[in-house]
Each structure stands twice: as C-alpha cells, then as structure tokens.
C-alpha cells in the first residue's frame, strides 16, 4: 500500500514540478478535509490520517462503471467492493461521501442495484452527480428516481456542511456535436442564483462528472461552458473543483481554484495523447489496483497549504 502526501502551495506561484508530481498519482479515492476554508486532502490510510485532522472530512469516489466486464477489468463490481472495504477500515470516519458519476456502465436497473448494495456498505451519506453512463436507459429515469430527489433540472443541487458550500453540477446532458461537456444556460442561471448571498469567505466545493476545466479537448475532456461557472466563483477565497470521468488523478491550481480529478474504481484510462483513444486501458493484472482508487478530503481551520492525497486500491 502506498500513499501520497503532497502539499500544495495555495498561491498562484505553485511550481510546475509540484503540479506534475501530483499528476502522476493514481488511486482509490480521496479523503478531503476542510479547515478555515482551505481544503486539504488526506490519504485513506497512513501518516496523513494519523495526524487526526479536525474539521470536516469527506470522501470522493468516482467512475465505478458497475456492469463493466471487458478485459481492462472483468470485475468492476469487485474492485468497487474492494474500495468500499478499504473505506470501512478507515480509522477516522468521514462525514459523507461524494460520487462523481458513472456509477453504472450501461444504466441497467441491475447495475444501479448492485452499485447501491456495495456502496451502502460504507454506511455513509452519499451525494451523487451523474456521468454520461448513468443516463443510458430508455426513459432516462433510473438515475433520477434513485438520486435525483430534491435536485433541479438534470440533477444539480447544493448543500452546506460545516460552513462549506457544496455544489453538485451536471455536465453530461444535451451535449452538442463536436463539443465538450455542457452545463447549459438553465443550470448556469441556477448556479448564479445559488451563490447569491453567500459570503466570499465561504469555502466552495464544486463537483461534477466531466472536468470543468479543459484537460484535453481532443478526447472531449473538458466542459464547453465551464469557464462561465468558474466566473461566478471568482472572488471566493477557496474554491475546490472535484471531477471524475478521466479515470486518473490530475490536479491544477489556478488562483483561488484547485482542480482535482479522482481515479476510477473500475479501470484506468490513458494519459492524454498517449493512446489512440481515451478508451479503457488494459494493464497487467498485477498493476490494475495501483491505478484504481478513492480520494479523501479534509477541511480545517487554519492557513495550511492545500494538500490532496489519493489512495490507490493497492500500491
């Protein structure tokens, strides 16, 4: 088991080396903690956790693709089960979990049932946003029936926890030919409205399936109107954007905004441009679990620099 404990300077001067270093991680999930508006992420296990962070701690998992059974991972349900088992052994229980989409592979009822059965074993509240793989059923209702309660439009919503404002966005519907992920005018309007009255010192966590920033447009890894959403978040002291979709850890710090993508619990995808397509990447069986993972986040009072840790299912 290996873990990663990279501290990031929260200011714009973050070094290129640091960022690149972080881009090499791969993992099961991220444990996040928020303190004084500054999100830190801690490993699921190991030294970072032993530090007993105060404040709000939550977990991110992503891209479980329940139902996927192709060579890149013939048992995606099994690796999700391993990730959840790992979460259950955490010495410090996170407050809740977010799932950044692609819960299922083909939106079949049985896939949603299996995902629920396994994820509920973590015994944590889970806040979901959908991936494009969760809207494939004929009537496009399975996801919304299960997870859409209290949400607007295609499933966006916000909530508050420990003084942190969480915003779940949907950027996987109504995609335009030749384009990227899409939020749409209605959702952007809602977002602007949702932020009204929030003081600029309120820490904000935005989570959505497809990266809100442009990672690699040639593979569709970005959100067409993501910049408009980020415009509304200007002026806030601390903004953390958590995404999935690309099945690998990437991180970028830009001014007040920290962007982070989580690993999949199902299968890895190639680094941008290193393969003919973003399809599932077949790696040696012995390597697979080092490329799947979860992430944890801890928000603490104080002015410590941002740290994010992703933990793979196995080192």
């Amino acid at each position, binding site marked *: 088991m290996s873990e990663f404990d990279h501290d990031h300077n929260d200011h714009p001067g973050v070094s290129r080396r640091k960022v690149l270093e972080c881009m090499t991680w791969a993992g099961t999930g991220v444990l996040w903690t928020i303190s004084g508006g500054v999100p830190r992420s801690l490993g699921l296990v190991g030294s970072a956790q032993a530090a007993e962070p105060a404040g709000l701690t939550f977990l991110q998992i992503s891209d479980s693709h329940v139902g996927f059974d*192709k*060579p*890149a991972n013939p048992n995606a349900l099994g690796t999700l089960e391993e990730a959840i088992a790992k979460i259950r052994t955490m010495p410090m229980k996170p407050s809740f979990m977010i799932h950044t989409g692609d819960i299922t*592979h*083909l*939106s079949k009822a049985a896939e949603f049932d299996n995902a629920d059965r396994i994820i509920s074993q973590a015994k944590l509240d889970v806040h979901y946003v959908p991936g*494009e*793989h969760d809207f*494939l059923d*004929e009537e496009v209702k399975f996801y919304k029936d299960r997870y859409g309660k209290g949400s607007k439009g295609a499933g966006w919503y916000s909530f508050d926890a420990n003084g942190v404002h969480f915003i779940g966005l949907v950027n996987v519907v109504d*995609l*335009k*030919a*030749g*384009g*990227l992920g899409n939020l749409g005018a209605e959702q952007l309007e809602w977002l602007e409205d949702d932020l009204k009255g929030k003081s600029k010192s309120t820490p904000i966590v935005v989570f959505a399936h497809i990266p809100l920033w442009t990672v690699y*447009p*040639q*593979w*569709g890894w970005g959100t067409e109107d993501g910049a408009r959403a980020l415009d509304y978040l200007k002026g806030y002291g601390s903004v953390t954007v958590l995404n999935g979709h690309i099945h690998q850890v990437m991180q970028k710090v830009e001014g007040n905004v920290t962007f982070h993508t989580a690993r999949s619990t199902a299968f890895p995808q190639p680094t941008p441009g290193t393969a*003919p*397509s*973003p*399809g*599932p990447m077949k790696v040696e069986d012995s390597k697979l679990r080092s490329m799947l993972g979860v992430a944890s986040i801890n928000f603490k009072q104080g002015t410590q620099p941002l740290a994010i840790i992703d933990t793979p299912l196995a080192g």
Partner: protein
Amino acid sequence: MMHVTLRSLGKLAIAAMFSMCLGGAHACAEDTAITIDNFTFSPAELTLKVGTTVTWTNHDDIPHTIVSAGKFRSKTLDTDNSFSFTFTAAGDYKYFCSLHPHMTGTIKVE
C-alpha cells in the same frame, strides 16, 4: 396451394428488389458499413445513393450512440452492437455520438 402462393410472393419480392435497383441507371444502392474503433467513425465521411442502408457497429469497450439531429437516433450501442438506417432522401447528414460529442461523421446522400 399455400406453397404456390409463397413462391409467388417470393418472386414478387425479388422482382421488387430488382426494380429498385433498376430504377435509375446507376441507382442500385449497396449496403454500407461504418465501424467505430477508438472513438472514431470509419469512414467518417461517405457519399451514398438514395436508398442505401448504413450499418454502424461499435467495436469499442465503451458504449456509443449515433445521433443526427432530427433525422435518426440509435439506442446506446454496447460493444459489438449495431444500428442501421436507410437513407431515403438526398441531403447532407451530420451525425455524432451523444456521449462523446467529439466523435462526428458526415454522410452525403445523392
């Protein structure tokens, strides 16, 4: 009696196929296949005769769709699933995968 009727129907059907092909001197439409490999339609551009049926087959390990706004829309195609559409009117048909919109193709029907 029944036997004879079926035979006649079969002959009629064959005749109908021929008449379609002979409708114009070069208008005999042959069915065409488009494959999806590595998130790419191949060929991405095609020129066809009216009446041609195109069948798309997904060879990726990830599902795709084939959508031409207002014209046709496939169900989600899992690995090795196919979708067919017969082009009965001339025109330019732009289509894309609604899950991975950077995947696009064009069919020109004459």
